[in-house]
C-alpha cells in the first residue's frame, strides 16, 4: 500500500549560507541529512543550501542572522511537496528514479537529489510514525503531471 499526498500549502524557504556565517552555524547538519526542529523540518540539501519546511519555516527563516554571504528565498509558491508513504514507497520511487532508496543508502532523515519521472526533485526520507515515507520537493508547475506519474507507478502496489 502506498499513500500519495500533495502538500500544496506547506511553507518552504531556501537558505543559502557560506561556511562561517551565523546562518550556517545555526542550521548545521551534515550535507545530505535532515532534522525535525519543532514544527520545522530542516534539510541540508546541498553543501551551502538548507530547506526549511513546515509551518515553522517562516518564523525560523525570519529569525536567522543573514549577515555575511547568506541569503533566503521564500520558495513556498515555487516549490511544492508531495509525500509518498507506505511499505512499498521505495518500490514506487524505484520505478521512476535511479537513486538507491533502500535503507543502506537512504536511511530515515537522508536527503538527496534525483530525477523522478523526469522531474528534478529534492527528496527527504521522513518516516511517519515508523512507516517509510519520502518527501519530494519539486517545481510546482510539474505537479499535475507528477502526481499522475506517481499514481501510475504505485498502481501495482
Amino acid at each position: 500500500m502506498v499513500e500519495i499526498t500533495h502538500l500544496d500549502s506547506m511553507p518552504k524557504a531556501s537558505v543559502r549560507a557560506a561556511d562561517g556565517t551565523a546562518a550556517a552555524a545555526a542550521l548545521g547538519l551534515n550535507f545530505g541529512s535532515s532534522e525535525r526542529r519543532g514544527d520545522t523540518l530542516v534539510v541540508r540539501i546541498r553543501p551551502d543550501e538548507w530547506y526549511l519546511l513546515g509551518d515553522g519555516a517562516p518564523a525560523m527563516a525570519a529569525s536567522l542572522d543573514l549577515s555575511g554571504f547568506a541569503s533566503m528565498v521564500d520558495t513556498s509558491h515555487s516549490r511544492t511537496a508531495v509525500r509518498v508513504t507506505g511499505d512499498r514507497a521505495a518500490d514506487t520511487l524505484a520505478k521512476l528514479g535511479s537513486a538507491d532508496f533502500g535503507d543502506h543508502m537512504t536511511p530515515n532523515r537522508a536527503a538527496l537529489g534525483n530525477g523522478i519521472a523526469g522531474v528534478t526533485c529534492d527528496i527527504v526520507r521522513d518516516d511517519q510514525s515508523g512507516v517509510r515515507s519520502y518527501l519530494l520537493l519539486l517545481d510546482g508547475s510539474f505537479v499535475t503531471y507528477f502526481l499522475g506519474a506517481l499514481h501510475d507507478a504505485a498502481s501495482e502496489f
Partner: protein
Amino acid sequence: MSYRLPAPLGNAIDRSSAISFTWNGKKLKGFEGDTIASALLANGEHILGRSMKYHRPRGVLTADFWDPNTTVQVDDEPNVRASHRKLADGMAVSAQNVWPSLKFDVKAANGLVGRFLTAGFYYKTFMKPAKLWPTYEHVLAKFAPGGAVDLNTPHGRYDKRYAHPDVVVAGGGPSGMAAALAAAEAGSSVMLVEHEHQLGGHLLWGSDDDQVAATELAASCEAAGVEILSNSTVAGRYEDNWISISQRNHPGVIERLIKARAKTLVVAAGTIERPYVFQGNDLPGVMTSGGAQRLIRMYGVKPGTRAVVFTANESGDSAVEALQSAGISIARVVDARSGEGITSASGSKSRVKRVTLSDGATVDCDLLVTAVGWTTPTSLLNMAGDRPVYDADAARFFPAGPPDNVLATGGMVGDGSRNELIAHGRATGELAAGRAVVVRHRIQAATARATPVDGQEPDYPADERTPLDRARHPEVYRSTTHGIVDYSEDVSSKDLFSAAGEGFDSVELIKRFTTATMGPSQGKLETVNTVAMLAEARNETIAEVGTTMWRPPYAPISLGALAGRINEPTRVSVLQSWHEANGATPILAGQWVRPEHYGDPAAEVLNTRTNVGIIDVTPLGKLDLQGPDVPKLLSLLYTNKWMALPIGGVRYGLMCAEDGVVLDDGVTARLDEEHYLMTTTSSGAAKIWHWIEMWLQTEHPDWQVHVTPVTTGLTSINIAGPNSRELLGRLTDDIDLDPDAFPYMNVRRGTIAGVENCIAWRIGFTGELSYEIHVPSGHAVHVWGQLLEQGADLGVKAFGLEAQRIMRLEKGHFIVGQDTDGLSKAPVTGLNPLLKLDKDDWAGMPEVAWTIESGDHPVIVACQPDNGSVVPEEAAQILRAGTTEIVGRITSSRMSPTLNRSICLAQVTKEFATPGTSLEVLLVSGERITATVQEHHAHFDPEGARLRG
C-alpha cells in the same frame, strides 16, 4: 497420433488443466505448462516453421529459448518463440512467412536457385541497372522474414524499474541457485535471474534426484528472500555493474526493463549445447540431446518413435536413457568417443527418415539426437572485458578472468557432479556477498547521507574457491559433409568455407559478411561452430581464430521494454484551470501547456492594441540573484554593461555561448542593493540557471552570488494596451504609475490587488504601453480575476500566445531559437550597440569580435511581401533572383491584424539586408514571390511611442 507421454514424465505440465488453441486454424489441445512447441509436438505437428532464406521445413531443435526455427505468429503478435512461450487458452497460433501454407510453401523455390543465394549475395546482386532498384526492393520485401504486424493492435503496457541489489545472479541452474542462496544467507540482497520459466537449469530434465534437488534449492532461495526473476534475461552488463534485465513475467505488463546497479555480478549461465554440422542437420526430427530430454522429462512429449543417437558425451548417454524411458526405440547409438560418426541425414519434406553413418551404413529412424559438445555463453563476461580462451581438451571456450566485481560459476568455468556444481556456486555466492559488502561500504563512505558509514572498510575477500575440473571432450564440429551452421540466417558451412575462400580471414568480418550469428539466437548456437568452420577452412586452430565480441543484448529485447513507461513532464501555471474554463486552445510550448488563443487571436491583437489585454506569461524564466558580485556576473554573461544599473532599473541583455552564438536574452531588474531578478526566455530558464552555476562554480567560485530559480513561484501577467496604466492603477495604491515616476524599463515592488510582495515591471514584448506583474503564485488566481473584474469597463480581455507572437512580430522583436539558430552569432541580431567590445571580457566576446571584424555573417531584417495577402511559410527559402542560390530564409511570418497585411522577419546575407532590397521568396507551393526589406525591424510604431507613453 498423439505423442504425449504418460505421467510421471512431464514435470512442467499440469495434466488436470487442459488448454485449447488453434494451429493454422486447426483446433488442438495442450496442457497448462506446455510451451507452444511442446503442445504442437504432442499433437504430432513436427514442422513449426520454414527457414529464412531457402524456406526449408524446420522443427524443434533445442526445445528452449534458443530454438532457432520455431518462431510463430500468436494472434496479432509476430515472432513469438514457440519453444519458450507458454501455451494459453484460446491462442491462435500460425506459421509465419509461408505462402500459401506451411506444408506447401512456394517460396521454397529459393532452394532451387540456392547457388545464387550464397552468403553475401546481396552485396553483389541487384546493383545494375540502378534504376531497377525500386522494383528489386518491392520484390525482395515480399521475402522478408518475420510475422505480420497489425497496425491496429493497441499499444501494450511496458514498464521500467531501477534496482540496487548487492548481488545479481544471472542463471538459475544449480550453481546459480546455490550462489544466490549463499549470498542471501550472508546478508546480501540478491536478484536471481533465469531466462526460462523455472529455476533448475539442466536438473529439470535430469534424474529424479536432480529434479528434487532443483525444487529444494529453488524453495530455499525463495525462503532466504532472494528476488527470483524467472522468464527474465540479463541482457547486458555495463560499466560498474550496471545490469539491464528484461523481465517478461511481471503481472500487468508485457515486458519490463530493470536497470540494476549490482555490487557484484555472478554469471552462472551454464552451457548451451552445440548442434552438429552435417548434411541434413536441419531436418525436422534432428535435435540436440538436451532438446530431446526436455521434451520427454519436462513436457511429457515423445520426440519420435525410432531414434539414432550420435553422442560424444554424457548428455548423449542420458538422452538414450530418457528415450528408452519414453518407449522410443533406439535404432543405433553412434559414439564419437569411439571414433564413430555420421555423415548425413535424409528424409521426406516433413522429417528425417534415414541416417548415413561414417562407415557407409544407413539406419532408418524418425529422430536423430546429437550430443557433440557445449558452447559457453560468455556474453556477459565479454561485456565486462573478458576475452574467452579456447581449451582444445575440453572442446569449448572458458573465461580468461573477468574483473573482481564479476564472478563466474557452474558450467561456464568447469564440469562436475550436481553436488560439485552446487558447492562451487555456494563458494561463489559467499565470495560475491563478501565483495558486495566492501563495495557497499565504499559507496556509503563516498556518499553524503544521514548516517555516516560505520567502521573501517572490510578486507576485500580473495578468490579462494576450489576450481571445477574441466572434463575432456572430443572436438566434434563437422562431419565430412556440409550442413547448416546458422539456422536463423540459413548460413551453411559451405557458405563459410566460400567466404573464407574469398579472403574473409577474420571471424568478425566473416560474421558480418555471411550474417552468421546475427539472428535471433544471437550466436548462442552458432558462434563456436562458425569459428570452427573458419578454423577448418583456413587450416588454423580454433584458439587462433578466436571468438567474436559478444555485445548487449544477450537476448533480443522488445522496443517497448526499452522505452518503458513514457514519462514526458509537462508544466502548467496556476492559471491553467482558468484558461481551460474559458475556452483556451492549449499549445505545448517546450514543456509548458499554454493557451494558444481563446478563439480569435486576431481579435485578441486588436483588443490589446485598442483597449487592454492580459496574458499569462508565467513560463518566462525567472532567477533570483543575490550577493555583492551579481553585477560582475551579469557583465560576464551579457554582452552589454551592468556595473551601474540603479536600484529600480531594468536592462535588456543578450547572452552568447563561448562560440559567440546567441544563447538567450531577457531583462534583468535591480530590486535592491544586492538583489536582482533575471528573466530568461521560457525555454531557456533551466539552461541559463545551469549556465550561471557553471560559471560560478568552475570559473569564479570566489564570487559571492546566490542563484535561486523562481519561475513558478512568481506568476507573471503582462498587462498591455493603452488602458493598461489605468487598469493597474485601480489595483495598487503603493506603486506610483506616473510615467515620470515609473518610466519605461523600470521596476517597482508593491501591493497589487491586496497581494503584498508583487513586482511590477514596465516592459513589454507587444510594443504597447504595458506592465508585467509578478505575483506570488498562491495569489495569482485572485489577481487575475481582479484584473478582469476591475478592467471590464476598460475592455480588458485575455489574450493567448498566438496574439502575443503576432504583436511581437509587428513590433519586430526577434525570438531566440526561432529567428536565430544554432549558428547565429550575436551580430546576426543587428543589436551591435549592445555588443560592448570595450568591456574586459564576456562570454563569447572573442568570437563576436572576430565576426564583427570579418563582417561575414547574415543579419535579421524585417520584410514585407509585396502582395500583402500572401504569408510566406516560416523557413521558406530566400533566393537570389532567378536562381536557386539560397541567400536567406523567412524566420517568422504572420498576417498582421493591425496592419492588415503580411509581415515577416528573415535572416539574409548582408548583400540583401539593405532597406528597400527586393527579396525573392520560394513558397512551399513552388511559387516565387517578392518581398521588400524594411528600414526597421518594427513593422509597427518603430519609434516606440506607444510603449514609452
